[in-house]
């Protein structure tokens, strides 16, 4: 008699679950709360890279070969960004949010998912230009220590400079953008003085807790990789981390659905920028 297969259980979906289970049990990296569609694409790409026919063939390799496991972990959490990506949003940060934050005696900014540092240094530049660098600190966090190391180094191919210049100008930047970098050969390095206000720390949104009270959380295009449940959990973590009146900035196409029901502490402030604010009791929040 032939085996009866579960309905609605696509075989590749089964492979993904088994692979995530192996990563979690062997190395403690828990990606089971991640949204599956893009995760599956990345794993399929890795299967092609390692020239195996099925994703599940990667399981025995990653269990016994730490280098393969590390490659997998890196590619699941791979960052991508640019300086002043979505210039209009950063213009809003420059013109509206930072002036608002000025009223706090001290500004802690938590920038989640460091990438290669593009958004972290975007913030550092803005703080400088708004004359807030002396009373603020940026905490940039990532699950992956290798990415933190890259972000701390702050170097990129000089070919990337051109679109960033344009982004910068469109965000209302008036200075000479190139002066924020030191060019050497084919690479550019961020000026050392911009690193002074930044702390790089390893933080895992899945398991780690609040580490500091902050006035501004910047978490752009990280939550899209999480499933709905993990998203809720992380939004709660942000709400707990924020001081009342502080801001949360998400990616341009990310939204918190049901703020009233599920996140009464967070109120939408500007839909175009995906900006939220932690509610002040008794205050007006629109």
């Amino acid at each position, binding site marked *: 008699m032939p085996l009866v297969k579960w309905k609605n259980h696509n075989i590749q979906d089964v492979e993904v679950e088994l692979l995530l289970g192996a990563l979690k049990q062997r190395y403690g990296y828990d990606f089971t709360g991640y*949204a599956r*569609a893009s995760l599956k694409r990345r794993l399929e790409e890795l299967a092609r890279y390692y020239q195996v026919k099925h994703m599940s063939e990667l399981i025995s390799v990653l269990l016994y070969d730490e280098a393969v496991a590390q490659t997998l972990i890196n590619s699941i959490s791979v960052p991508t960004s640019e300086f002043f990506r979505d210039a209009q949003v950063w213009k809003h940060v420059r013109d509206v949010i930072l002036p608002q934050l000025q009223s706090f005696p001290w500004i802690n900014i938590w920038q989640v998912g460091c990438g290669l540092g593009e958004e972290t240094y975007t913030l550092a530049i803005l703080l400088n230009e708004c004359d807030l660098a002396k009373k603020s600190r940026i905490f940039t966090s990532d699950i992956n220590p290798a990415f933190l190391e890259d972000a701390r180094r702050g170097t990129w191919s000089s070919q990337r400079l051109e679109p960033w210049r344009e982004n910068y100008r469109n965000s209302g930047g008036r200075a000479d953008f190139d002066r924020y970098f030191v060019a050497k050969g084919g690479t550019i390095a961020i000026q050392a003085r911009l690193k002074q206000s930044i702390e790089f720390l390893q933080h895992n949104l899945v398991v780690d807790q609040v580490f500091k009270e902050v006035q501004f959380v910047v978490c752009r295009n990280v939550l899209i990789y999480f499933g709905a449940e993990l998203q809720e959990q992380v939004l709660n973590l942000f709400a707990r981390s924020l001081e009342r009146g502080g801001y949360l900035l998400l990616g341009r196409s990310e939204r918190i*659905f049901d703020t009233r029901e599920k996140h009464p502490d967070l109120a939408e402030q500007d839909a175009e920028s995906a900006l939220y604010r932690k509610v002040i009791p008794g205050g007006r929040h629109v």
Partner: protein
Amino acid sequence: MYRLLVIGFSAGGIPLVTQILESMPADYPLPIAIVGHWPSGHESHLAELLGASCQLPVSAAKDKEAIVAGRVYLAPADYHLLIDRTMPSAANFALSVDAPVKSVRPSIDVLFESAAQVFESSLIAVLLCGANSDGADGMVAVKQLGGLTIVLDPQECEFSTMPRSAIAGTTVDYVSSMDEIVSLLRSVHEKP
């Protein structure tokens, strides 16, 4: 029964997709997800433009947004749009900023492949025109998983690399004129 319509286009496609949406009745029974290539930040403008000329509500898809019948969703510029299965029989939209595929983001392939994996034979995929081969791999996936594949007749469009690549890549169900595509898509509505 069909449960989702996906449409892909690139260069020269905006008038064509406008023509399709204009012909859809207000009670069209399928959700429609569209990937096109347009400059970053312009999707809300395009949503307004398309929304003004058709009877269905048009908006840029948001991450984790529910997929509702009779609504039109555009892939936001600079994000891939995907379909995520959330439960054995439920799905929503998902976005990613993963690397461009065939040098484009959003990629038609990414939407079509993820939609095919979730909706299988309940999916209709339409590929219009463009100057690159985006969508061809997506059409292969849709066809393999039992969905309905419709490609615009390359003779009917200025930029025909896109439909030609799809036709070369798989045996599509229909190679049709714009008028035929419109009546095919409308007939879904007329079916009991």
